[in-house]
């Protein structure tokens, strides 16, 4: 007669199309082969089109032969706080199961991949809409009895296999199911599809258990290498700039030297002098300098057609593409680049005296934002590469261009705002510096960002500097307006937020 009190319960969370059904079948097969009562269910429906979905399994830990003809009644729905193993192919989906209350602190083992597949709301954000990984990991770790967390996607790629096989390996190795490891391998063989690849993934999952742990994500940052011609300038930076901002400043120097020339890099360092002093005076500990230096380097390497051509003809670029495609050295690769320059792009490289009247005329005739030249350039062919190279060589001409003049003017104005704010509050200066984040991109994106920045400057920053709001209120207001500007491309949130700030300021004045 039976001595077990409950089935072993497994809730698998996955994205539609990731093979969660196959994983489920492997477990059912392995349990069935051991003579254990087992049941699985799922709710595929439209979720199989890349949406979040779950699979649920129950296994009775004793074989049919020990049950004397009795049938356990297995549930089709997972129970609150009743799951022995939560297995997830992705971190957010593991968190979703936990948030659903299915895990129990005294029962559940969470086996999840730490890699992220970003949801559409995270991807389409105009800035950074990603969920906080640390928060997800903490929630998972706190709500479960034990956890096995590692990057299963990388493990699968390393084994030239698929993620569900790695998951199965981790589940088998966890020891939480009443099924020995060999039975899972037999199940993969019995299923009969891509057996070798699946067994490799399974082995990788088992092996990963040994070193599983929420290892911190490796840095993806790609710093620029030093250049001999920059040595003097970098030494100057080391001598004059605080350590807290140095790595950023050095990166900025290298970037701008490549973007333009040494003189331009020197201009960057010079511009930072005032910010360094303001930072020190306000006791910001280098934070204001660091953030401003970061934004300044990005702003000074503004995105014009010359820069695009520079990037597209960078010798390291083709190698990056080859690496991404995992090509062997002799395998041919063809690259087609998509450009669609308009009047503005053309004018940006003309001298201001020519560009201004041309832009004005284009505006009158409604050509701005409507007239473009669509180009598909085969950058791997000699003629295509030459065209891009020619454009890149306009670098020397850049300081005489209309766009350059415009950008320098705007940069100086922005730096002046940061400097003006610093004596009032370094926190406010930092928020203003951060508004540079809004100005990015090409064409429409650039125009929209610039317009938003100007609106914030006019409605929030300038009034704040004129003393219309108290410093703490101003800090909040700038931050709120910046966040709102990144909330939607139509500027609806920004309008609303600016209205609210206006009202709040009105109240503050009235109260005073």
């Amino acid at each position, binding site marked *: 007669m039976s001595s077990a*009190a409950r089935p072993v319960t497994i809730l698998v969370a996955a*994205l539609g199309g990731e093979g969660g059904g196959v994983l489920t079948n492997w477990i059912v097969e392995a349990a069935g082969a051991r003579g254990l009562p087992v049941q*699985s*269910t*799922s709710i595929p*429906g439209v*979720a199989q*089109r*890349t*949406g979040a979905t779950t699979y649920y399994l129950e296994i009775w830990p004793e074989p049919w032969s020990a049950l004397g003809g009795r*049938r356990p*009644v297995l549930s*089709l*729905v997972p*129970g*609150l*706080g*009743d799951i022995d193993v939560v297995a997830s192919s992705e971190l*957010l*989906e593991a968190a*979703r199961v936990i948030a659903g*209350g299915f895990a129990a602190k005294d029962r559940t083992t969470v086996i999840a991949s730490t890699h992220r*597949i970003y949801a*559409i709301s*995270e*991807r*389409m954000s*105009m*800035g*950074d809409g990603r*969920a906080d990984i640390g*928060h997800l990991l903490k*929630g998972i770790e706190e709500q479960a009895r034990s956890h096995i967390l590692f990057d299963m996607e990388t493990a699968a790629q390393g084994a030239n296999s698929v993620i569900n096989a790695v998951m199965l390996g981790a589940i088998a190795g966890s020891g939480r199911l009443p099924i020995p490891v060999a039975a899972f391998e037999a199940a993969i063989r019995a299923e009969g599809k891509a057996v070798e690849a699946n067994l490799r993934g399974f082995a990788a999952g088992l092996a990963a258990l040994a070193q599983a742990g929420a290892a911190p994500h490796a840095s*993806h940052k790609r710093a620029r290498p030093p250049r001999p011609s920059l040595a003097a300038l970098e030494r100057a930076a080391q001598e004059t700039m605080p350590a807290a901002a140095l790595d950023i400043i050095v990166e*900025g120097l290298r970037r701008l030297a490549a973007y333009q020339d040494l003189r331009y890099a020197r201009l960057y360092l010079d511009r930072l002098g005032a910010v360094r002093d303001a930072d020190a005076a306000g006791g910001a500990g280098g934070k204001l300098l660091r953030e401003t230096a970061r934004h300044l380097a990005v702003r000074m390497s503004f995105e014009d057609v010359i*820069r*695009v051509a520079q990037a*597209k003809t960078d010798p390291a670029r083709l190698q990056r*593409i080859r690496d991404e495609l995992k*090509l062997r050295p002799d*395998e*041919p690769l*063809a*690259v*087609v*680049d*998509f450009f669609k320059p308009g009047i503005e792009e053309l004018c940006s490289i003309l001298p201001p005296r020519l560009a201004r009247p041309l832009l004005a005329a284009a505006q009158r005739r409604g050509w701005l*934002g409507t007239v*473009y030249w669509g180009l*598909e350039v085969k950058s*791997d062919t000699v003629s295509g*590469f030459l065209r891009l*190279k020619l454009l890149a060589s306009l670098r020397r001409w850049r300081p005489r261009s209309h766009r350059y003049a415009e950008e320098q003017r705007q940069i100086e104005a922005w730096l002046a705002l940061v400097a003006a704010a610093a004596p009032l509050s370094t926190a406010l200066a930092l928020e203003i510096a951060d508004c540079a*984040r809004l100005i*990015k991109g*090409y*064409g*429409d*994106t650039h125009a929209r960002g610039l317009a938003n920045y100007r609106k914030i400057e006019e409605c929030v920053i300038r009034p704040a500097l004129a003393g219309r709001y108290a410093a703490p209120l101003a800090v909040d207001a700038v931050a709120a307006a910046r966040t709102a500007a990144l909330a939607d*491309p139509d500027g609806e949130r920004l309008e609303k937020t600016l209205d609210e700030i206006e009202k709040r300021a009105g109240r503050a004045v009235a109260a005073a």
Partner: protein
Amino acid sequence: MERSFKKEIEALKLGDGEVFHGEGILAVTKALLQSGVSYVGGYQGAPVSHLLDVLVEAEDIIGDLGVHLETCTNEAAAAAMLGASINYPLRGAVTWKSIVGTNVASDALSNLASPGVQGGALIVVGEDYGEGASVIQERSHAFAMKSSIWLLDPRPDLPTIVRLVEKGFELSEASHAPVMMELRIRACHVSGEFVAKDNVRPAHSKLEPIAGPPRFDYGRLAHPPATFVQERLKVEERMPAAQAFIRAQRLNEVFAGEIGEIGIIVQGGLYNSVLRTLARLGLADPFGASRVPVYALNVVYPLVPEEVTAFAAGKRALLVVEEGFPDYIEQQINVILRRADINTRVLGKGCLPQVGEYNSEALLSGFAAFLRETRPAGIDVDAGAGAADRLLGARRAAAAALGELPARPPSFCTGCPERPVFSALKLMQREIGPTHISADIGCHAFGTLAPFSMGNSILGYGMSLASAAAVTPNLQRRAISVMGDGGFWHNGIVTGVASNLFNKGDGVLVVMQNGYTSATGLQFMPSSLASRSGTAPGMDIETTLRALGVKWLRKVRTYNVATMLKTLKEAMRAAESGLKVIIADGECQLARQRRVRAEEAQKLARGERVVRARYGVDDEICTGDHSCIRLSGCPSLTIKPNPDPLRTDPVASVVQSCVGCGLCGEVAHAAVLCPSFYRAETIRNPNRWDRALYRLRRRAIAWLGGAARAA
């Protein structure tokens, strides 16, 4: 078809005493064959698609048995097939997704149920309710009640499901009424096993045809005055006959329990959930021995008053566990007990939620409320209800700890041909302003989700154009109706196109021609380029529209965003009134990939040249604004941490799964996005010319690049 059923087909061949392993809905298919059906039909839709899909691939089995199979163009056609059972001793079964399919089928169902049947008629509906459902949340129960169709809701365990299919045919024949079986999503996909029987060759089929029609009998027609007689027959003869059969065959099950004061009446389909809830409160063991008596209704309509009163006798209170609204069963039980003058309290909705799936959370809180309300002797109510409270509390704490998480709705697949149409629509709206979008059922309904968030109404399958009939005349700008080719043939051709032309309507119709009913698992439909018999059905949407009299008609390849945008603007701005149809042409990428991958694998194996295209993003040039994602949403176009030490916002990135559909480049052009996109073409098994040309170019470019660097 999206998947192959080779293994499952073998299971359909099992004979007496062999053990069937598989999912619930395929057990139903096997049970149909064991019941000697002469014909099977239906319209695909989750969760019952597999019932038909497997038969479509099992031509040899059904051929041997003589079973006639139809993959109908809609549920009304499927329901009308059951007309064969009105006059002949033919058993037949049809299937579809409910509630929507039953809505479409309801005209035929009423006209079937009124005259009644000679041969057993079974309707298997997938009750698409609760988590994972994709349709309006209503109950099929109402249809059973209004048309006097008996409704089965078997315990979700394969032997019970199979027995109820077999008994369902007998019930239908014994009472001359059609029988409907509702299976919830999880029951359709539940795995399990049962001991099979031999398949039964029907007495009459195409192998053994019936000699001729019966003598004319007006009484078999759903036509007055026969309908008045039929109405009486349904109530006075068929229902009592059904109730007698249900009792005699013990289709419903009583599980005795020692606590005599209370009892639970549950829809069969929810039995396992109820038992698990009782077990977690310490009131049942895992093998079904419950301390509280349970009456499981495998037949939820009609109820058997004698059984209900017998179960209620001597009990202080009953809990009715009935999912969905209205509470038809609870009301009927109240009436039955009232009429029998039994004063047992009936609790149900109130303890349990009024609406929504009865999942673990709903049942735990409902049972705790029931125990607290009734406080039966012999049960430690506080311990039981307290256990439920603790679990519910922990769930709230876990939800609070993790906070709001980004939702992950389904979306267009990677490389889907329908995505570019919505990119073009979004760009068009930017130029000419917002337009009313009349959405429809099908994959293209994903256009209502982020990042497109487009659509002002969804009125049913193939209904988008019809539902815009009164919109266009009342709005400044024309409404745009989006319809799939599946929806077009399902009924859009008549309710939408014909009606619009007949009324000299205006408006824009975009027909997504991807060649399959893709959302339901890639089934063939009238304009597919192939069919289950291999040859193309030969029906063409463009020809059909012209024949109907559509004058303004354009066919545009979907991936060509610029042309699509231009054509949409043209349709919106055209001075002349009248229906404007754009056929958005592009094969379903799931189907295409299945074919292309197999072909490529063969070519690679043979050492032949294969060119592959994939898109990529230069992260240095990408500005992290993600406009491209807001115009696409392709799963392979995602974000990654910014590798630039000076920037923090993530940059766009194209991952391995990219199928090179070309949308990224098209959108970058049509929307004038940043120039960070590139197309990378690789050549596997390159020929000598490829290699030589590549070496030459590489050397020249290295030389040019090197020279530039030195400068």
